[in-house]
Each structure stands twice: as C-alpha cells, then as structure tokens.
C-alpha cells in the first residue's frame, strides 16, 4: 500500500521534521476554518430554508464586534505562520559554518556534481550521512531548480550567478532529485538520485576511483596555467589586488561603491573584469569569457576560497 499509494514523503534531512511540523500547523489551522465555515454554511442552509414563497430574510445588518474579531484573530494566526515560516526559512537558507562545499553545474538536461575531493558525477550525487553539505550551483543555459523532496530543500539554479542550498542527510538511502523549474523539452527527465551513505562507506566509495586531484588543486593548476598568478600574487599587490581572504570581504570599487565579494562577484570579475574594478587598480585584466567552462570556473573559485582559509588559519578539510 505504502509503495502503491504514498501519502507523505520520507524525512531524510535534519530540517525535514521542522518543515513538516510547520506544514501540519498551517494545515491544522486550515482544516479548523474549513470545517467551521462548511459546518456553518450547511447548518444555516438547512435551518433557515425558505418555508413560504414570499418569506424574506431577517433584517440583520452586521456587527462591528464580529468584523473586528474575524479580522484580528486570522491576522494574529497568520502572523504566527509568518514568524514560524521565516524562522524555518532562515535555517534552510543559511548553511552552518564549516559545511562541506560541493559544486553543481546544471544544463539542459543534466546535473553535474563535483566533490571537493575531485570526484565528478552526473545525475547521481553521493553524500555522507550527517555531514552538513553546501551546494554552490550555477547553470550553463536556462534556469533550473535543485529539488530533493526527502530533504525538503529547493533552490533555483541560474545562469550567470551562484546560488546555494544546504542539507545534512539523516537517513541512508536513495532519494529523488528533480529539476523543479521548467527548462525545456526534457525537463521531466532532468533528474536523478541522491544517495546517502554512512561516512565510512562514503570514504570507500570516494577511494574506489583512481586517485584524483582535489578541486582546490585543480583550481590552482588552472590559476597558474592561465597565468593569473603573474598579477594576483601573494607577495605583491602592484598589478592586481590580493585574493587572500577575498570571499566574504568588503571591497571598495573605483568610484567609491562598496560591495561584499561573493562567488558571483568573483565569477563576474573573471569573465568581465572591467565591470567592477577594485579601487586603486587599472582595468588591465583581460577577459576570460568563453575560455573557461563553468566547471573550471568553480574549480578556480574553490582555489581562491581556499586562499582565504589558509590565511585565516582555518584548517582545510
């Protein structure tokens, strides 16, 4: 029966239960009011049926007290929904510090994943149980949306910028991965599976493939191949600004504007370096538009982010 006609999705992430509790609260309130209204309608319908053809209704015009009551009470209840909903939303939106970072590139019609250890997968994602995992995602073409119902997480994946989603799986198993934003002909086949494994098993699975370079190491290689290091050097800031500890830091641009250097800013600065130049530097960097794939961009990004970590004394994974 359960397999033929499931009525409720599995809970397989640390936040699934809190989403469901909130859902049950809203549904509970809804059922209460639906029954109240339907019950009143049916009762009045029968009780006050017309008994003779010329009969008219009683002159009941209204009641300010009732109007205030059925404005204020629903308002108060919806404010509870709002507050509770915002609390759950913030915990869904903000990955815990130290979450392991995976990278996702979506395209028509597949999901491409890169583990920090360098292993890559398509339409399959293996993750260790209990470890908070943050996905940094971008798209090569149209908007997609990463959706794992068992984890109660969803986030749109856009071209030209990075979005994130995070989860900590709580039950080993295989769970549906769907694309939730309509993306063209094979939208309904742009899915796959997320496999949650015990950490030890996950380590064995990672090791099962011939040894690979980590994302950071690959990124470092691109960094030198593309000669980024001729200007962005740790020892001098003459031609280009230092990249150490850049991610999450506030930077001042030419013209005085300030912004927080996030992943999308770094991506833009690689592809369109003249757009937002750091104050004090000439716009001399060449563009890498069309020369780096989205995968290479996230490898570079993970290298640049690792520079911040070692400088801050935070140990790498």
């Amino acid at each position, binding site marked *: 029966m359960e397999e033929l006609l499931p009525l409720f999705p599995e809970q397989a992430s640390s936040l699934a239960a809190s989403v469901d509790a909130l859902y049950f609260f809203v549904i509970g309130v809804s059922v209460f009011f639906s029954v109240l209204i339907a019950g009143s309608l049916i009762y009045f319908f029968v009780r006050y049926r017309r008994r003779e053809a010329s009969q008219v209704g009683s002159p*009941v015009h209204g009641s300010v007290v009732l109007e205030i009551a059925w*404005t204020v009470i629903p308002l108060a209840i919806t404010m509870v929904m709002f507050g509770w909903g915002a609390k759950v939303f913030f915990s869904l939106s903000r990955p815990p510090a130290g979450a392991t970072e995976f990278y996702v590139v979506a395209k028509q019609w597949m999901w491409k994943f890169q583990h920090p250890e360098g292993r890559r997968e398509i339409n399959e994602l293996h993750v260790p149980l209990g470890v908070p995992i943050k996905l940094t995602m971008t798209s090569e073409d149209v908007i997609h949306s990463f959706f794992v119902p068992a984890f109660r997480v969803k986030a749109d994946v856009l071209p030209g910028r990075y979005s994130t989603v995070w989860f900590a799986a709580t039950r080993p198993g295989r769970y549906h991965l769907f694309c939730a934003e309509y993306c063209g002909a094979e939208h309904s086949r742009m899915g796959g599976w997320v496999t949650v494994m015990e950490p030890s098993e996950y380590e064995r699975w990672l090791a099962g493939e011939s040894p690979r370079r980590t994302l950071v190491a690959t990124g470092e290689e691109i960094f030198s191949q593309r000669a980024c290091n001729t200007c962005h050097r740790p020892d001098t800031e003459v031609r280009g600004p230092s990249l150490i500890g850049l991610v999450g830091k506030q930077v001042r641009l030419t013209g005085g504007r300030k912004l927080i250097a996030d992943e999308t800013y770094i991506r833009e600065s690689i592809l369109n370096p003249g757009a937002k130049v750091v104050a004090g530097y000439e716009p001399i960097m060449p563009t890498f538009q069309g020369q780096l794939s989205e995968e290479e961009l996230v490898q570079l990004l993970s290298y640049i982010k690792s520079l911040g970590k070692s400088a801050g004394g935070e140990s790498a994974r």
Partner: protein
Amino acid sequence: MKNTAAAPDYLNANYGIWSWLLTTDHKRIAILYLISVTFFFFLGGFFAVLLRLELLTPAGDLVQADTYNRLFTMHGVVMVFFFLIPVIPAVLGNFLVPLMIGARDLAFPKINLASWYIYTVGGLVTFWAILNGGVDTGWTFYTPFSTTFSNTYVIATGLGIFITGFSSIFTGLNFIVTIHRLRAPGLTWFRLPLFIWAHYATSLVMILGTPVITITIVLVALERAFHIGIFDPALGGDPLLFQHLFWFYSHPAVYIMVLPAMGVVSELVAAFARKRIFGYEFVAYASIAIAVLGFLVWGHHMFVSGQSVYAATVFSVLSMFVAIPSAVKVFNWTATLYRGSISYQTPLLYALGFIGLFTIGGLTGLVVATLGVDVHVHDTYFVVAHFHYIMVGGTIMAYLGGLHYWWPKMTGKLYPEFWAKLSAMIIFIGFNLTFFPQFVLGYLGMPRRYHAYPEEFQVLHVLSSAGASILGVGYLIPMVYFAWSMRYGKRCEPNPWGAVGLEWEAASPPPPHNFDQIPVVSGGPYDYADKRNRGG
C-alpha cells in the same frame, strides 16, 4: 416602469449580422464576449483533456515531450489570458454594470465595442500561433528560456497577449468612468451592489497592472528578436528582472479573476437568502483592500528564485495581509445566511460551491505564503492544486452561478432546473476529485510541468484524471441546456427570483436602452426587509 410585452427587447430590436457586429449596446457586446470566451474555454479545456490523458501513465507515452510542453503552455495561456481574465467582467460585467446602476449604457459604448474587437484580434493572433505549432515556454514565459532557447512561436503568442491587454484596459477604463459618472439619482457609493464595488476594484487592477505585462512582452520580443540584453545573463541581462515584471502584473491578475467572482457571489447570496449582505461596508472595503494589497505581494512567486531572503520575508508578511480581506468576505457571506430565507436554487448551489472551494484555495494560499513550507511545495502540484482551487473552483463556479442567475435577465428564458442542479453537483464532485489529489502529490514532491513521472505517483494521477473526466461532463451539460433553452426554454417572468436590484426593474430581456425612465434610488441595494414592509 415595466415594459409592455410588445416593446422590442435588445435581442429582437433589429436583426442581421451587422446589427450585432456594429452594435454599441453593452448587452449585445456582452453576448459577443460570451460566445468568444466560451470558444476559448473549450479550446483551453481541450488541451487539459490531453494533459490529463498523458498523465494517466508514468511513462511519457501518449504524446512527445515537446508536444506535452506545448499543451500545458497553451492550456495556461488560453485559460488565463483569453478566458479567466475577461470572463466575468466582459460578459456579466458588461451586461450588468449599466443595468445595476440605472444607466442606459456604459460611458463609452464605442470603446466597449472596440474592446471586443481588440480581444478577438488578440485571440486570433494567439490562435494562429497555436495552429502553427504553438509555444512551449509555460504561460509564465520565464527568461532566458523564452528569449534565447525556445524554438517556438513566443513572439506571436506574446503579440496576442499584448493586443488583448488593451481590451482589458479599455474595459477597466469604461467601468471606472461609468461607475463614477452614470449612477442613477440617489445611488450613492454605499448604495451600490457589491458586484459594482468588486468591478470597480477589478478595473483599478486592470488599468494599473496590464501596462506592465504589455511592456514586459515588448522587452521579451526585443531580446528575442534583436538580442538586446535585458533578461539573458549571457547578453548582460538579469533573468530575475523578468520574474519581477511578470509577477507584478500576473499576481494582481489573479485578483482580476477572483474579485468579480466575489462580486457575483455577494449578489447570489443576497438574492437567495433574501437578505442584505452581512457587514456590507466591510465586504465593499475588502474589495478595495485586495486590489491595493494585491500589488504588493508579487515576490511570493520568487521565494526560491534567488531573490534576497529579506525581500522574501517582506513578501511573505504582505501575502499574509492580503489573505485577511478575503477571509473577511467569506465570514460575511456565511453570516449572511444566518436567519435568511434560503431558497435551494442552482445559482446558490454554485455560490456555496464557490465559498467552499475558494476557502480551500485561500487557506492553501497560506501554505505557499509561509516561507519555510513554500521552499518544499514551490513549483510542485501543490501549487497547481492551490491556484486551480482559486481560478477554477473560485472564478468558474462564480461565473456559472452568475450565468444561471442572470440567464433569465439575458434571454428571458428559464434553464431546466433539474439538469442545472445535477450539473452543479457533478462539477463540484469532479472538481474536488481532480484537484484534491494534487495537494497530496505536491507535498510528496511531484514537480509541475512533468511529462513523465516516477511510478509511485501514478495512483494519485489516475484519480485526478478520472475527476477531470467527470468535471468535463459537468461543463458540457450547461453548455447544452443553455443553448437548448434559448430556443425551447420556458418564458420567464421579468423577475423570477423575486430579487431586488435595479437590473430586475428593467424588463427581461431588457429593451435596448434598459430603462424608459431612469430610476430614482432611495435605499440600499439589498432592502428585502423594506420590500416586505411595502408588501411587495
């Protein structure tokens, strides 16, 4: 004031095709719209039939994925832009606004006729695009898919919507001026029927919102045709800008569909309980509140889009606010039945159906307005079920209720009561069987716009398709007996329901200029108690 039987009514005042195609009589224009929107309703319904047939099995086996994508897109485009948005204002509103305020026509009769022609031209352009292969972007036209990636008739379909938008603007403008300028002597604002209040609020949304979708379509066409970077990041654009512009119109558009429906329901409840609407002023103000707040909630379509979490928080709280005036209306309709004189006629069955289904649609709106839950249910069948409860359970139930209630006014004929009651029940049952399982499917994680789906969702999909076949039969029956009654229906009295309201003071069907003498109004809109005192 009653016309003699010999005086010509608007239907037989003159004959011939040109007397219809060049008419400026708001009642005839309403009939023209009735024919046009009915055509588009069955066209959109035809697409829905194919969709539900495809979804009977998990494999995408009846039609190709490309075809399926075109089908759901055209179902949405046709139903939203060519049926749901115009249906109540253009048919019932056109017919009744002048009658209800004691006017001989709308303020601009020629603009009214022009609005029907514009609607028809827009509809034909989109129909042409459909016949040539259609469009596959979803009715939401999200960029950059629609501007850069789709190989279908995006611009032609958009052009149809662009053109039709002007008919909406014309209708809204006409209603606003008419309601301000042409009210009968003594008909103060708080003596207006709630149908008029609702149409006034709707008209505000039409003239303020529609230009935004019109501009947005132009921008999509510019990017698609000339690669001007507006929405596609590859061209330097911003895809979220499109979503903001699109929903800035398309969320209020939901209120263009549902506000007039609420107006209809107020009339039906008052007429069949023979009672003033409980808390009349609050229901009137609630329409205005919905129209205003409706413009401030568009971002709730974008909670997982990548907009900032703070923007999402603001849109969530505003969306909670917009639920309140809707709730106030539901409570007031319910309270109106208290100590009423309730007659079990078909229009009231539809009104009760509306209240029940709209309540479920509204309450599940709270589920999707609640941030933490919306992340999970966004873009799933939960949302599909929610908005069908509002648009089909709400708007179409009210429209059918109104059509039955005013049918004697429009045609002078009665419809067969037995078949009418039967089809109202079939529609209610079929509707719930179609869309209730979709709430369950959505929470399970079934995404919308899927041609093929995992096997475990099949039982719920089969239930939904079975319900849709019942619903389809329910919609065909009224179509048949309305057509039948125009020729064979029993002639009715001018006021078969014993209802009050200026529209019932004119003959049924009314003469071309509605009133020989403009009525003078001395009381509120639902004075049944006074009527009893007068012995009438």
